[in-house]
């Protein structure tokens, strides 16, 4: 089945967030279109994670709006959530499930099914296929991280999953894996995907694809 590349717009207008007495960020506006990466930069505590959580609908902004194709994400709710793949700080991996079970469940939450072979295929791409049937309790932090990232290898069709929101996707990964993930993200973006990510490492993406957003007073 041939699918045309999607053209979506995520627009953010005057977004602000207050936590307690502190203004975390304010007046953030940008438009992001399919085929672009948004690199959110800022010091620790500058509100990167909060911004990302707001963009995927987990946190409510104190001011401003987030819209997906000119409709507010608050109104779209589940219709929007189904189009976003969010990988946060917490890996979202169950210790008592195997790697394959974890992947299958995560994918079903975004509304799709994958069979065992597909899940193992993704684990192979990440070099952890031998852990497929182990309970993730026995795995290292980096390995758990890779299981969470395996979703990126299964949800890499911008037609199905047009937006990835990745909070520090490169943490706990080794150099080899970082290169591989960078390339994978770039391929997805070239196919018409939209990615928002934070990172403290300067990633080696094609500068033409990247749009930057600086949080805090730098």
């Amino acid at each position, binding site marked *: 089945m041939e699918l045309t590349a999607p053209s979506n717009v995520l627009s953010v207008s005057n977004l602000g967030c207050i936590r307690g007495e502190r203004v975390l960020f304010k007046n953030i506006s940008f438009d992001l279109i399919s085929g672009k990466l948004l690199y959110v930069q800022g010091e620790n505590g500058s509100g990167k994670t909060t911004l990302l959580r707001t963009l995927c609908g987990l946190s409510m902004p104190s001011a401003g709006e987030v819209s997906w194709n000119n409709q507010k994400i608050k109104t779209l709710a589940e219709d929007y959530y189904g189009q*976003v793949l969010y990988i946060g700080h917490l890996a979202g991996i169950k*210790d*008592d499930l195997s790697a394959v079970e974890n992947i299958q469940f995560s994918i079903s939450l*975004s509304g799709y099914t994958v069979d065992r072979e597909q899940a193992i295929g993704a684990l192979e791409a990440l070099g952890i296929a031998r852990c497929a049937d182990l309970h993730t309790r026995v795995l290292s932090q980096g390995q758990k991280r890779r299981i969470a990232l395996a979703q990126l290898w299964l949800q890499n069709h911008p037609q199905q999953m047009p937006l990835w929101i990745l909070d520090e996707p490169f943490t706990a990964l080794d150099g080899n894996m970082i290169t591989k993930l960078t390339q994978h993200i770039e391929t997805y973006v070239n196919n018409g995907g939209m990615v928002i990510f934070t990172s403290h490492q300067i990633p080696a993406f094609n500068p033409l694809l990247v749009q930057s957003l600086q949080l805090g007073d730098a």
Partner: protein
Amino acid sequence: MINNKISTLSLMSRVFMRDITLAWRRRSDIMSVFFFFIIAASLFPLGLGADPKLLHAIAPSVLWVCALLSCMLSLPRMFAADYVDGTLEQLIISNQPTLLIALMKILAHWVLSGLPLVLVAPLIGLQFNLNVNELQVLALSLLLGTPTLSLIGSIGAALTLGLRGGGVLIALLVLPLYIPVLVFGAGAVNAVSIGMSASGGLSLLGAMLALAMVFAPLTAAYALKVAIE
């Protein structure tokens, strides 16, 4: 490759089955609550001595209070583990309403903590000199009442997520709300033992279940969204 879509029903059953699988892999957690009920309820006949009349008179309330407490003990488990490892976030931003996800988790909680009580209570009731008719009503009242306990409890469990000392707070929040269930649950069994019909109490339990079914998942879903912010 293009993945296949999954239906709402199938996703709901997956959420349910995941909780059952996880509980099965940590059997000791469910077993401890189950045995708490058995032991707590068995302490009364041992402590009060062998006065069949007295035991018979207190049986409905004792069994119901023990069911209430053991249900409450298992409440923190409903969402806490998912909250800690980040799967709760993923559940909330899934492409299905949080309401349905919460409902499935509540159902799983009842199957794991309420249903075993319904099944074992008649056996425990024997220690209290209850007759067959009373045992039947006891089981029936628990069958109608324990789902309400899980439903109401889910609100408390969701509201106390991430709070320190959440366990005690759940008790303070939820136990007062359990009172009507206790009154009519124990009341139904009491009615039978004095020769009246249990249908009044049982109908009210059913009505409370219907009411809780409508409002509790909605409230719990909202509380979960607040908790993860």
